[in-house]
Each structure stands twice: as structure tokens, then as C-alpha cells.
């Protein structure tokens, strides 16, 4: 039975500013730092505004997501930043607890990356929102990116507290709002969304995770056990149904939720990721539900899905407990050829690691991997599998930030800050917390929410774009390839389809190495929390300089192999052109 109290999150741990009892030592000079925040110096000056006014409206603690996408097709990743606004019709801007310092609309930043003669890279972001046609003035939650019309130009889906928005890329630096005609408005409290071709018809469909049935008018006052007012736990509000939209191929979508998602109630959806978990060649969908059983929609290959989370072992923890479940990612962290799941949780719960047996049955190895205990003091949101050191093994980063002020904490207007975590894969099913070595940015507490992952400067290592609730955007640039030391090599491929040369989410890549086991990665822009990541695939090869073979299984099931693919550079593999 669920209780409308902050005490429902009764295992809240004091974590203001991270674990005050395990604060890491400084990692030394910026030159030695693995990640450096370059947001301000590159022009990404943006502070999120959540509209809080002391009323503790429920949506205030949830945003924002963030997006990495190449909207102008110049080969580098641009940025979309989600913004909030005042909540409640009668709330005025002067009632805001925090002053706003950036415009109250979502912002599009163009990446004007230059590669200098000496090989160094200069990042520069320019705010091009005003002429982009994007008018995102709703209470923004997140962003998903996908090419809905197969013209090779990325389109944007913005999730909001309120009506969502679908923007079609006009291929000239501008976008057109086609929400109404597309049929994807979905007036609700939406958080994460993913584009996937679930029916293999060549068109990207859309799954939207909706959170709770909530209006400002239905907002409830909640307190902690001592009676102090705070934010409500999600169980106070009824779960809102998710939506699956099938792309008709003509700029419109059909809501196929009721006939495609068979017979299961929805939860309070926060994170969503699409992957082929049972390796039958069809995309499945995993939804992280807040305070309820997660969903694993297994594709039945006939236009419908069935939820098998419980039998697969990914609905709840090994103890049978439902947990908060915010951020999520799928990836082959143990290099055994199948996608495993990581889910970030509330402080006191610990992130969950579900290891796939190759057939879509999972085992909770959160404790055994070390991830569970290490993340217990933190409330995790955006997260992803990424190989930050290019050793061929997927590591993990999580951005953290509480959803309640720690009981007894009244200092500060939004005292939810926690530090980020970086875990290195030790290649034996375990992870090592290397946050201390990663850079000063990992010591700086923020209310972390969205995180998008990608090679922003195209130098062959993955960077991270972080969005913080009421905080500044942070651009964590990976310095792996700038630091010298033992050289690591990498494979960077963009997989595009024949029709329109669009990115192909759902394609899987096997990197076949001489004298070493294969590595598997998948093309995707989804996962994390309310964010869109780089759809290109970057695979660390460690110290091996041998050019691997690359075998691609396209979303429609066809397989192609490239016999020799150059390493240490980005390249595009086009469907049907293998050699």
C-alpha cells in the first residue's frame, strides 16, 4: 500500500553534495583529468529553470533531458537543451524562487567544430534557436531524435508536461512543428521517448513513456515523517499510459497502443530503451517505471508486444522489490554478445544491473558487480554504457541528484545536489568506482538529470553532455586522446540506410577482431534519461591496431559484412555497400 508521504521514500540518505562521508580527493591538475567541463568556454551557456516557487509542484524535480544530434548534417554533433517555465496559470515569473538567466524556451546550439592544422579541435557552439523555427515554450521534460521521413535529416520529438511536439527538419537549418498533423501530440506528462522500427517496415515508429496523471490542480501536499513539506513521491499519483505510435510513412503516425501492447497496465514511465534482448532480430522495448514494476515489451513479430518483464527477471529486484527506476541503458558490458540492462535508482536502493543470458532471461547482479553498493547513497538519473577509455569494455557513468531535500536540510533553495559517478569495467563482471580520478567535474555536486553520450569533437572518444535541474549545462569532454600515454585505437562508424541515408537505430554491429573475441554494439540514440545520444557507434579497440571486420545486422534482419574497416577515424557504412 502506497503512502502519500515523503516517507514512502523512507530510505532517503543524506547526500547533499554527494556522500558527505565519502567525498573523493581531488584528481589533481586539469591536464590530468579524464573529463573536463568545457560548456562555458565553448558557448554552451545555459541554466535550466524549473519554475519552482515554494509550492513544491511535482514536475519541478523531474527535468531536464538533453540531446546530441547532427541536425545540419555537417558531421558533428549539435546540441538541444530542454527548458522549463513557471508552473500554474497564476504563477508569475517574479514569484520564482530562482532567477532565470537564460531564455525560457528550449535551445538549439549548432556545433561549429573546427579541426586545426595541428590536429587539435576547437569546439564552438552557437545558439541558432531563433532562426531554427523551434518554439519550445512548454514545460520541457526531454528530447528524442530520429529521422521520421527517411530524408536523411534528423527530426526532433520534445516531451513535455503538457502536449509534446514533433519537429520535422527542413534540411536548411530550420524545423517545422508538425505535431498536430502527425498525431503525436500526446497531451500528458511525458518524459522519455524512443524512435524504433518495431515492425520492420523501414519507417521509424515512436514509443513515448508517460509518467503520471497529474495536473497543477490535482497537486497534493506531501510531507516527511516530521511533517515538513516537500515533493511528493510518485505513488501519490496514478500511472499514465504509455503510447506506441506507428509511422505511416507519410508524416503521420497512428496510435497503436491498445492493439500493439497487449493486456498490461502501464507504470509511471521514466526511462525507455529499445534493443533486441532475445536476439531474434526484432526490437524489444524496456521501460523503467518509477515505483512500480518495469516493463519488457517483447516484440512478437506480428505488430504486437507482450510484457515479459516479470518472467525475464527485470521487472523488480532479486528480492522482488519495486524501485524508483529513472535512467536506463542497454549494452553488452560483458562482451558475450547480448544486451544487458542498467537502471538507476533512488538513494538507498542502488543501481540495478540485469545480466542477459543471451535468450532474454536476466539475472540481477547488482550486488555482485559492485554497482549496487557503490550507488546506494545516490539518486541516479541519466546513465549509459560507454567505453570511456577505449579498452573495448563498456564502462558506466551516472549523473545524480536527489528528488527530496535530505530530511532536516533547509539550507539552499533546491538542496538536492549530488556528484556524478564513473565506473570502469574491470572485465570480470565487476566495476570499479574511478570517479576520483576522472576530474574535478565529478566532485562538483549538481541536481543531475539528463545525460547524452557521443563524440562531440570527433576525436575518437566519447564525451558526455549533462543537464542539471536548475543548474548549468555541463559538457564533459573526454581527454583520453589528448593526454598521450599508451595509445588506444578505436573504430567509429555511422550506419545509414539506403533510403534517405538515415541513421539506423536497431542495427547491431559485430566487430570481429583477429586474435580477440568479437565486440557487439548497437545503433541507438535512446536510453539514459529523457535524452538523445549520438547514434554513431564508437568501439574501443584497446591497443590493437589491426583493422577489424565489421558485420552489421540491419533492423530488417539482413546481414552485411565489411572485410576491412579503417580504424581511428569516423566513417559511414551504407546499407547494401559492403565489400
Amino acid at each position, binding site marked *: *500500500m*502506497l*503512502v*502519500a*508521504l515523503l*516517507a514512502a521514500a*523512507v*530510505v*532517503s*540518505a*543524506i*547526500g547533499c553534495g554527494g*556522500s*558527505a*562521508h*565519502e567525498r573523493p580527493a581531488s584528481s589533481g591538475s586539469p591536464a590530468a583529468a579524464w573529463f573536463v567541463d568545457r560548456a562555458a568556454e565553448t558557448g554552451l551557456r545555459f541554466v535550466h529553470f524549473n519554475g519552482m516557487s515554494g509550492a513544491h509542484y511535482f514536475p519541478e524535480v523531474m527535468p531536464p533531458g538533453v540531446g546530441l544530434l547532427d541536425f545540419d548534417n555537417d558531421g558533428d554533433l549539435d546540441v538541444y537543451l530542454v527548458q522549463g517555465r513557471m508552473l500554474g496559470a497564476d504563477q508569475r515569473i517574479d514569484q520564482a524562487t530562482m532567477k532565470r538567466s537564460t531564455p525560457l524556451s528550449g535551445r538549439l546550439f549548432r556545433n561549429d567544430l573546427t579541426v586545426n592544422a595541428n590536429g587539435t579541435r576547437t569546439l564552438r557552439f552557437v545558439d541558432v534557436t531563433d532562426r531554427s523555427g523551434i518554439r519550445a515554450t512548454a514545460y520541457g521534460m526531454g528530447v528524442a531524435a530520429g529521422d521520421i521521413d527517411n530524408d536523411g535529416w534528423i527530426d526532433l520529438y520534445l516531451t513535455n508536461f503538457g502536449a509534446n511536439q514533433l519537429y520535422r527538419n527542413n534540411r536548411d537549418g530550420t524545423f517545422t512543428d508538425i505535431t498536430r498533423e502527425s498525431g503525436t501530440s500526446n497531451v500528458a506528462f511525458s518524459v522519455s521517448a524512443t524512435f524504433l522500427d518495431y515492425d520492420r517496415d523501414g519507417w521509424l515508429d515512436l514509443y513515448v513513456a508517460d509518467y503520471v*496523471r497529474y495536473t497543477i490542480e490535482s497537486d497534493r501536499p506531501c*510531507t*516527511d*515523517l*516530521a*511533517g515538513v*513539506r516537500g515533493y511528493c513521491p510518485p505513488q501519490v*499519483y*496514478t500511472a499514465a*499510459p504509455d503510447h506506441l505510435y506507428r509511422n505511416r510513412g507519410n508524416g503521420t503516425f497512428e496510435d497503436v*497502443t*491498445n*492493439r500493439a501492447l*497487449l*493486456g*498490461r*497496465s502501464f507504470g509511471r514511465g521514466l526511462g525507455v530503451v529499445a534493443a533486441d534482448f532475445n536476439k531474434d532480430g526484432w526490437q524489444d522495448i524496456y521501460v523503467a517505471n518509477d515505483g512500480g514494476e518495469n516493463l519488457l515489451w517483447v516484440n512478437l513479430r506480428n505488430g504486437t508486444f507482450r510484457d515479459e518483464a*516479470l*518472467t525475464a*527477471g527485470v521487472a*523488480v529486484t*532479486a*528480492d*522482488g*522489490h*519495486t524501485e524508483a527506476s529513472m535512467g536506463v541503458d542497454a549494452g553488452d558490458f560483458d562482451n558475450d554478445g547480448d544486451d544487458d540492462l542498467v537502471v538507476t535508482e533512488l538513494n*538507498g536502493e*542502488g543501481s540495478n544491473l540485469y545480466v542477459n543470458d543471451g535468450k532474454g*532471461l536476466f*539475472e540481477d547482479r547488482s*550486488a*555482485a*558487480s559492485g554497482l*549496487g*553498493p557503490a550507488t*546506494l*547513497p*545516490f539518486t541516479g538519473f541519466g546513465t549509459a554504457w560507454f567505453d570511456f577509455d577505449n579498452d573495448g569494455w563498456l564502462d558506466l557513468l551516472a549523473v545524480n541528484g536527489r528528488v527530496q531535500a*535530505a*530530511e*532536516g*536540510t*533547509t*539550507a539552499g533553495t533546491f538542496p538536492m545536489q549530488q556528484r556524478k559517478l564513473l565506473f570502469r569495467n574491470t572485465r570480470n563482471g565487476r566495476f570499479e568506482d574511478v570517479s576520483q580520478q576522472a576530474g574535478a567535474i565529478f566532485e562538483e555536486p549538481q541536481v543531475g538529470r539528463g545525460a547524452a553520450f557521443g563524440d562531440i569533437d570527433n576525436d575518437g572518444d566519447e564525451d558526455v553532455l549533462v543537464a542539471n535541474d536548475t543548474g548549468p549545462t555541463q559538457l564533459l569532454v573526454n581527454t583520453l586522446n589528448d593526454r598521450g600515454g599508451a595509445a588506444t585505437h578505436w573504430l567509429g562508424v555511422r550506419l545509414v540506410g539506403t533510403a534517405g541515408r538515415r541513421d539506423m537505430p536497431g542495427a547491431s554491429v559485430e566487430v570481429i577482431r583477429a586474435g580477440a573475441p568479437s565486440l557487439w554494439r548497437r545503433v541507438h540514440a535512446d536510453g539514459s534519461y529523457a535524452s538523445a545520444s549520438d547514434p554513431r557507434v564508437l568501439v574501443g579497440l584497446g591497443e590493437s591496431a589491426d583493422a577489424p571486420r565489421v558485420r552489421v545486422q540491419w533492423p530488417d534482419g539482413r546481414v552485411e559484412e565489411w572485410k576491412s574497416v579503417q580504424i581511428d577515424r569516423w566513417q559511414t557504412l551504407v546499407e547494401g555497400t559492403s565489400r
Partner: protein
Amino acid sequence: MTRRTRVASVIMIVALGVAGACGRPAPAPAANTRQLREVTAPDVSKMSTAVREQVRERFATLNAARQHAAGDAELAAAYGAVGELLLAARYLDDAEPALLNARELAPKDATWPYFLAHLYRLRGTLDQAAASFRDALALQPDGVPVRIWLASTYIDQGRYDEAQPLLDAVVQRDPRSTAALFQLGRLALARRDFPRAVSMLESAARSDPAATAVHYPLALAYRGAGRPAEADKELRMRDQHNSEVAPPDPVMDRLTDLLEGPQAFEVRGTDALNRGEWTKAIDSFQRGVEVAPDNPLLRHRLATALFMAGNVDEAERQFVDVARRSPEYAPAQYSLGVLLESRGRDAEAAGRYAAAVKEQPTYVQARMRMAGILRRSGRANEALEQYEEIMKIDPRLPDAPIEMAITLVRLKRYAEARDRLITGMNAFPDHPGFARALARLLAAAPDDRVRDGRRALALTQTLVKADQSTEVGETLAMSLAETGRFSEAAAIQRDLIAAAQNGGRADLAAQLQENLTLYENHRACRTPWRDEDVGDVSAAAPDAIRAAVAAR
């Protein structure tokens, strides 16, 4: 201490409390106390009155003990009292120094390291939690809860070898210790020793059949051991309240019962309600109402607990009271409606459901029950409107389309009813309700164009493999009669009547007699549903009232 100095102390504590959040130090300790950690009161200004008074009182006692240079034992008790209250309120940063001081002053008292261990568990710093549990265990070597909690912490940390001997020692003394058996099961599961996990968890389940938290891990153990059918069975019985399997723990029980604010009473009462401990639930909610008389949620839950305890008259009085005081509180209107309906007072119940829907238009449960009353009272078209609205609000609710189909039958719209049920079967393939309803309609619909005895029989023969209820039995009889197999139909109907009589259901037996007469006269049934067939309002009332607690 005189009253005046006590009041002055309280005022000082309050003043300190206001500044407490900024970490200003307490007054300097008396000369003969040790150098202990600073302990400051949290900001009490926004707390509920009752908790604020508790905090002030304990700090007053602490301050007095410090002022008059109390001995270690008294000081430890005072610090400990402050620490445990703040721990109960989950004010972990404030509680920690107080408990550390208590531990330092009374190093032989296991209570303080034990509370500290739980504090660290809540904070998520498991190394510290384990260290404190070890300290407590060293002081209380025979302590069972501490041993089990330490083992559980080790399991959470992946320290399986250290957990094992702790649990073995408990089970050696008490082979039926459910908590220890459960933890041994968790340990085996973590080690992927599935047969052992099955053994331990089965033992835990036998030791305490009410420990519902055992079912899910046991399902995983069966799955790992290659026993999928048993795994599925356990999954269906899994706990859905995040229950724990904890050892009897009077020390932690004392902590749980410490806070006297309305929120704490609500949490305790709701936990008791979930565990089926009606008396405890009533007591907690009653105390909550005493400190927060205007809180409709507490009153509603008190009424719910009274109903569950069988005190229906008093429950009705309480529901009426909360509905009168807080007419906008939709769950109370709904619960009162359910109670009235269970007592046969449909008209009054309908009014309450309407009130609930007026306050909360998306209250689908209230709409469902209102629709049922409308259908039974001959207002089938109005019932249909409610079902349509429910399906718009929540298309994933299977009950609405099923009952809508039955209502369509009432309006003689048999083809529409059939089509609704077929659509429902496709949308909810795992929900047998649609197949059950469709089979009955196909067996007994008065419309020849809709009736299909063969298909009805095929459906029912599949259903009966998993469901030998009277409802499905009756449908089987109807299907057999429709396909001309009257003697078989009659035989089944006689069995159903006998079972009803043996079960003390003379009323049901009488209802079933009607169709038996038809079959004995070689006539098929043409009444798919009697009114009584659709939901036993009285039987469903406890679940409905209990479920209303989850609604806000």
C-alpha cells in the same frame, strides 16, 4: 530544574533550532563532560506540532543533563533519546552525532551501535553499517536481529563468505527462523546455487506462510533450477507491497513507534493495514486522528481499518463523518458507497459514487461500481455511458469492456457484445475474463445469428482446464446443451447444484436449478447472465474498500 529554567531551556532549544540548520554550536558543555560531537537541533519550525514538541522535549532533557554535568549513563541516555528520535524521523545527519555520543558515553550498550548501523544502511554507506553491526554484535553475541542484519548487509555488498557463518549460527539455534532462512536463500541465489536457494526459501515459506516476500526470490530460484512451472506459480503469489522478511526486533519496533506526528501514524497504520493487523492499524489511525482531526486521509483509513476488522457499523459512521467533513475527498465517498452497496443500499451508494466522480472525474473504480448499480436497476444505457467513459480514461482496464459487453446483452445488442469480447480477447490475451464471457454469450445468446454452440464449447473446454469455478461449469453446461448434449449438460448442472449445497449456498443452488430443469426438458438456456452472476457485491466489498486506500 525549576519550571522557569526548563522553559528557558526550551526557548533556547527553539532558538537554537531555528539556527540549527546553519550549524551553530550548542552552548558550551559543562566542564566535567567529555569532548563530544556537536549536536544541534534541526529546524523545527516546519514540523508538525506533535513532532516539534517531541524534538524540543528531548533536546530540553539533553540540555539539562549537560547543564548539570550529568554522569555518563544519564548523558548517554539523553543523547541516545535525541538520536533515536531524529533517526525515526530520518534526519540522519542530525541523528548521527547524537548516537555517536551515546555510543561513546555508554560503550557497553549495544543499542547505539545498532541504531547507527541502521542509520548507515539508510544512508547507503554499507561499510559503515557493517562495522557498526559488528560492534553491536560484539556487545550482544547472542543477538539474532543484529546477526541477520549484518549478514544481509554483507550480501548486499557481495561479501557472501562473511554472511554465511552468521546465518548458519542463527539457524543452528532456531531452525525455523524465517528471516535467517530467507537470507540464506538470498545468499544461495546470489551465489547461483539454485537448488540450495530453493531449499532455503521453501523452508522459509513453510516456516511462515504469511511471509509473502519469499515468493519472488523463490520464483527466481525455481527458474534457475529449471523448474519453470513452479516459478510461474510463485510469481503469481509474489508480494506487491515491498514487504521485508525481518526478524522480530523489539529495538527497531520501538524506533518505528516513536514519532507521534500524523504522518508517522499514517505510515504505521498503513503498514499494519497491509499486513492485515487490523487492531494495530485502528490504533495508529485513531491516534493520528487525535493529533490531526482535520486530516481526511487518516479518518478514511481509520474507517477502512474498522471495516476490515469487521466493525461495519462503526466503519459506516466514520465514513459518513469523513465524507461530511471533507466532501471533496473522493476516496471516502467511494468507500462509503462500497459499504452501502454491500448492505443492499444501492440508491445511496450510487449517490456516493456520483460524488466521488464529481470530485475526481478519472475515478474509474467509482464509475465501474456506479455502472454496475445502473445496470442492475434497469438503467443499462446510462451504465453504457459510464463504461465508455472508463475506457476513454483507462483503455487498459479489462473489467470495463467485459461488463460493457454484459450490459449490451441486457439491451439485447448481442452482436455488439460479442464483438466487444472478441476485441478484448485479442487486446488482453492473458485475461481469461473475456473468454469466459464470450463462451457464455455464444452458448446462450437469444439471437441465433450470434449463438455458436461449437465455438462456445471449444472455448469452455479450454477454460475448464485451468478454472473449475461454478461460473465456468455453468457455461460448460450451457455449451453442451446448445450442442444438443442435454444429458451431459444436466449431469454437470446437478454436480454444480450439489457443490453449492455442500458449500452452504442454498441460494446459488436454487438459481442453478432453473437451468437444470431446462436441460432435463431438452431445452437450451437463453439467458447468458442473471443479475447475480455479475460480481458479488458483498464479497468484493473488502477488497474494494481496501484498494481505495491507495487512491488519493
